[in-house]
């Protein structure tokens, strides 16, 4: 970028005297840990965490809004359980990493001169975009997993677009800072005049102590929350918003029947499943239960990061589709009793519709579905986000 010449602003080398107070006072930040090495070590860890969250987030987006050219994985059945658990875990782990990174580079906020050229101004602007986007993603994600929406935007859309902007700003930042990152990682940081080596001052916290603190912080945040999807760590699940075994029939729920306003329609004894296609038909719950029943052990994996294995029993989707004479490769629309909400209808690509593990489930863990789990009938398919495992199904349409 050295070839690009922008007009330089003429600013004094030091802040005017009346400004030399607080953070603009010379020597205001004395710790040696505001250096390139600390910043690049913590920044690398944060970059890995953000990249993990970005990739897994895009996988989740793709599974919910599939592009036609994208292969949809149905195996392993825990594919989405893994990627979305990782998404939330890497986001939570990013909280201490971001705090530590911002602490390390905070003095640069008060660098003098504030702007030295157009290019410099653009770079600082990109840092502002990066930091605001990073904080936005972590805060909105953190509140979303407790289903707390104190804002006026639609969470998934906002989280998605800001993710693109933030990760783009991160790539730009890495490109701009590549030489400094390389110096920092290789531990070849040139000694700035007047700067002290870490530990040079008596009693100062060493870099190793700080990195240990960062590691411990990431560790405790992860250990106390990851039990909501890694069920073997459920006993140390202290701070996750979910206990993976707390809920009706020992399975959590994302949306209750009351929230979905289906309490009367789902309990209506006249409920019938209608299947439309070349040879449309309707079935009562009793008739559905009389069809060949199959068991599928499939995880229910929520976008909010929790997941748990469960044993589902019901009618195979492929059997229902053959009975209606659906052509091979046809897509299916599943309609719920839910009156409103983004997930009241669901499109099921043929990969899932023709999968022998995909069920219209009537029972969970040997018992009829509870009302909150989607009584009288719900969808369960392998490796799909929980919000697409439509509950309170009323109609299946072959498209």
């Amino acid at each position, binding site marked *: 970028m050295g070839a690009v010449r922008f007009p330089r602003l003429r600013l004094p080398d030091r802040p005017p005297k009346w400004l030399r107070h607080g953070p603009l006072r010379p020597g205001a930040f004395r710790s040696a840990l505001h250096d390139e090495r600390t910043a690049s070590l913590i920044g690398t860890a944060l970059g890995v965490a953000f990249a993990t969250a970005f990739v897994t987030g895009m996988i989740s987006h793709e599974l919910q809004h599939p592009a036609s050219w994208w292969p949809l994985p149905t195996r392993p059945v825990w594919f989405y359980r893994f990627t979305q658990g990782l998404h939330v875990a890497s986001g939570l782990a990013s909280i201490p990493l971001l705090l530590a990174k*911002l602490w390390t580079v905070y003095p640069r906020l008060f660098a003098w001169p504030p702007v030295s050229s157009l290019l410099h101004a653009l770079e600082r602007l990109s840092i502002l975009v990066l930091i605001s986007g990073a904080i936005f993603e972590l805060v909105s994600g953190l509140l979303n997993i407790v289903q707390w929406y104190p804002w006026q935007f639609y969470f998934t859309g906002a989280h998605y677009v800001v993710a693109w902007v933030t990760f783009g700003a991160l790539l*730009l930042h890495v490109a701009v800072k590549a030489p400094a990152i390389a110096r920092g990682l290789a531990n070849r940081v040139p000694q700035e005049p007047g700067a002290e080596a870490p530990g040079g001052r008596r009693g100062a916290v060493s870099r190793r102590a700080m990195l240990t603190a960062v590691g411990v912080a990431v560790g405790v945040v992860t250990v106390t929350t990851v039990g909501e999807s890694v069920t073997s760590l459920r006993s140390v699940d202290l701070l996750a918003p979910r206990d993976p075994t707390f809920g009706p029939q020992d399975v959590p729920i994302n949306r209750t029947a009351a929230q979905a306003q289906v309490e009367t329609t789902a309990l209506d004894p006249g409920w019938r499943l209608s299947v439309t296609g070349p040879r449309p038909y309707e079935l009562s719950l009793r008739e559905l239960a009389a069809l060949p029943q199959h068991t599928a052990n499939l995880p229910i994996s929520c976008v909010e990061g929790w997941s748990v294995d469960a044993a589902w029993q019901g009618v195979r989707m492929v059997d229902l589709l053959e009975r209606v004479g659906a052509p091979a490769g046809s897509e299916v629309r599943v309609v719920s009793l839910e009156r409103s909400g983004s997930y009241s209808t669901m499109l099921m690509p043929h990969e899932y519709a023709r999968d022998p593990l995909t069920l219209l489930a009537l029972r969970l863990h040997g018992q009829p579905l509870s009302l909150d789990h989607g009584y009288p009938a719900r969808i369960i398919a392998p490796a799909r986000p929980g919000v697409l495992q439509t509950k309170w199904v009323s109609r299946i349409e072959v498209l």
Partner: protein
Amino acid sequence: MRVSTALRMGVGAGGVAMIGFGAWTLWRLRMHIGEPESIGRWLVGGVIGHDAILAPLVFLGCALAGRYTGARVRRALALFLLAGGSLLIVGLPDALRSGDNPNPTVTPLDYPRNLTIALGAVAVIAVLSVVPGGVRDRRRRALVQAASARAQEEVMARQARTEAEPEPEAVPAPEHDSPEPEPEAVPEPAPEPEPEPEPQAPPTPPEQAPTEQAPTEQASTEQDGDPADG
């Protein structure tokens, strides 16, 4: 060099393209995304919340810790502040929302109690991390021992010279050092009246210097103003 420059340019251009795609998608989906101004408010509010509120508080805490605490306490505080603060950020939404959710399977745990347990565990980790005998202290001591081995010889010679004087524990640290790595001994020499024992033998090679537990350093309360608490 040329390849790395091209790589940098490519990554940077990719980043700009992604920013553009995000902005374009925001524009395209603006009708389906609620109030886009609300996104702007939260974007700006997050930066203000960190840069103008949280960070100044933390740096104020750092300055106070630098003024009133010693090296070990500061190290423990740094760990507790970062790990405990992160747990608080993660656990607070749970605690605030528990019992207040129309879906009883969200935030079903006793979060105030669990947060207390987790913070207590972090406090224990913080204390253990600076208690003598900790693993890191041992490693440090191994580094320090190598450095002090040379100095020891000279010190003992000096001791022999000043044997007549009633100062038997003038340099106890190196003596305890050699038989058993008892880490307590290293930070301890601080308050001792050791008048520049080795004028020409550097206590630690420069490579090993960057730990605040260098042997000749004293655990005194330095007026630092800015320790590295996260």
